């Protein structure tokens, strides 16, 4: 058990919807930087993230967060330590962009008090980081799917937590926005010392932006380690049943996956 790990998962077991998703699963996620969780669909990546976020309770086993048990934190303490963006954020009744982002300040707000200066600063900062400052008064219904995804990200950023957990944040975005979002997350990890954990389905993007990767399949840990070492033809085959070549891309020297089939 690494003492400087962000999350340490010990013997996690969970049964959902009639299926045993995890059975005695153990693993660790390092502190700092971007950590990606990859693997084929339906293997439990989202479920693991939900357990880490404290949103889903495991049947047995425990999760250690920054040295202490996750279950020992109150809901508010947890919300002030980590932000979680689920995979398909719900369609909310119409409100303004700033209105939704402001919800991210809830864990910090006291009863009966209006938004404080610190709250306003956090909201502004989040809007700026996601490029939504000009759209603050726009109604959500007037936004595109990609823009709405960025609003949800801004909400998570406004929560101002050292740890951010994201479930497929690039799902609805076109390539340009995928890249800008990942670059933003990279920047947050580097300049603002946040720890970011994301579930990604695109292996090449994961390889390019993440410091650390966890490969999961059917509730088993297939591989874990620095991205450059983890993405190999063997691990690709183990994860996706795919025969592939792995080479370095000419621009960033990051691993790129070339399927041979």
């Amino acid at each position, binding site marked *: 058990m690494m003492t400087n790990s962000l999350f340490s998962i010990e013997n996690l077991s969970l049964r959902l919807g009639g299926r045993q998703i995890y059975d005695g699963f153990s693993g660790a996620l390092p502190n700092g930087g971007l950590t990606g969780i990859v693997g084929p669909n339906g293997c439990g990546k989202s479920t693991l993230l939900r357990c880490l976020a*404290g*949103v889903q309770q495991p049947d047995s086993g425990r999760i250690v967060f920054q040295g202490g048990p996750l279950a020992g934190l109150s809901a508010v303490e947890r*919300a002030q330590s980590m932000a979680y*963006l689920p995979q398909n954020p*719900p369609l*909310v009744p119409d409100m303004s962009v700033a209105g939704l982002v402001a*919800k991210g300040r*809830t864990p910090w707000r006291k009863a*009966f008090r209006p938004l404080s200066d610190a709250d306003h600063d956090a909201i502004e900062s989040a809007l700026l980081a996601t490029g939504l400052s000009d759209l603050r008064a726009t109604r959500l219904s007037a936004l595109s799917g990609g823009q709405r995804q960025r609003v949800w990200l801004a909400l998570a950023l406004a*929560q101002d937590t050292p740890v951010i957990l994201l479930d497929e944040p690039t799902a609805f975005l076109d390539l340009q926005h995928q890249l800008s979002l990942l670059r933003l997350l990279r920047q947050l990890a580097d300049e603002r010392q946040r720890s970011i954990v994301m579930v990604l389905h695109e292996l090449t993007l994961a390889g390019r932006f993440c410091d650390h990767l966890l490969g999961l399949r059917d509730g088993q840990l297939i591989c874990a380690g620095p991205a450059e070492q983890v993405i190999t033809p063997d691990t690709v085959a183990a994860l996706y049943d795919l025969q592939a070549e792995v080479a370095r891309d000419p621009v960033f020297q990051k691993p790129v996956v070339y399927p041979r089939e």
Partner: protein
Amino acid sequence: MRRAVFLPALLLVLVWLALAGGRNWLGPVALVQGLLDRQDFLIYGLRLPRLLIAVGAGMALGMAGALMQGLTRNPLATPDIIGLTQGAGLGFAIALLMDLPLLAGAACGSALAVVCVALLAQGRGALAFVLFGIGIGATAAAATTVLLVLAPDAKAARAMIWLSGSLARADLATAGWVWLVLLAGGALVALRAHRLGLLWLGDDVMASLGVDLSRMRILVLGLVTALTAASTLAVGPIGFVAFVAAPLARAISGAEAPAIWPAALTGACLLVAADLMARLIAPVAVFPTGLVMGVIGAPYLIFFLWRDRQEAR
């Protein structure tokens, strides 16, 4: 901001009309004089208690509707549609016949209804809640009618008036109970306002923002049960106010969901207006307020379904 003033202003106008209007119309001067004179029977004996009950029950129903819609994230799941008002009615009828405290009976009735619906609907999908609620509500309503038909005459007469949703026998004591529950509930809502504002964002986001989900559910369901019971105690099982209040409030004032306070104001406006109409028609025909509310509320539900259909196309 301008839009936000509209609802309180509307309520004040309606309150004025309710005090001034009726078989004897009071001009502004006469009304003020009447208010200042504590012995004035028309104001203090008749109209004010009725108005207090209408406002209190209307606010309670509006709040209950907004809270329920927020908790279930379903605009169709309101206490009147999923059987809570009917359950409160049944509880009230049983308490009446057995000489038990009436508010407690109503509260038990609505609590039982919500528990039944929740247990039955668990794990069966989103529609189930509403559908089971309709069934439980119909059963409770029929059982209430049967009980009152069997009741001894003395109680039956009073109960029949109450059952049809009439404020004719309004008294200050009942108004007091309604306002007590309303103020307590309102204080809780104010205390938890920030968390309640997250209701429509979904369970995951709420949990992520530090809300204890099971405590939130208990809080909201407890509030809804108490508010429904209090208003049903006062005005009988009146439908549609809880359903209409929050969406109408959002349409009028542009407030953000769940819009609990605007819904309370809208509920009060609706019930005061319905009661005023019932009183004005009274010389021609005696319509209980609940009936008037049905004629106002049912077309709104129809409009809602119609518009929902157009959007789905």
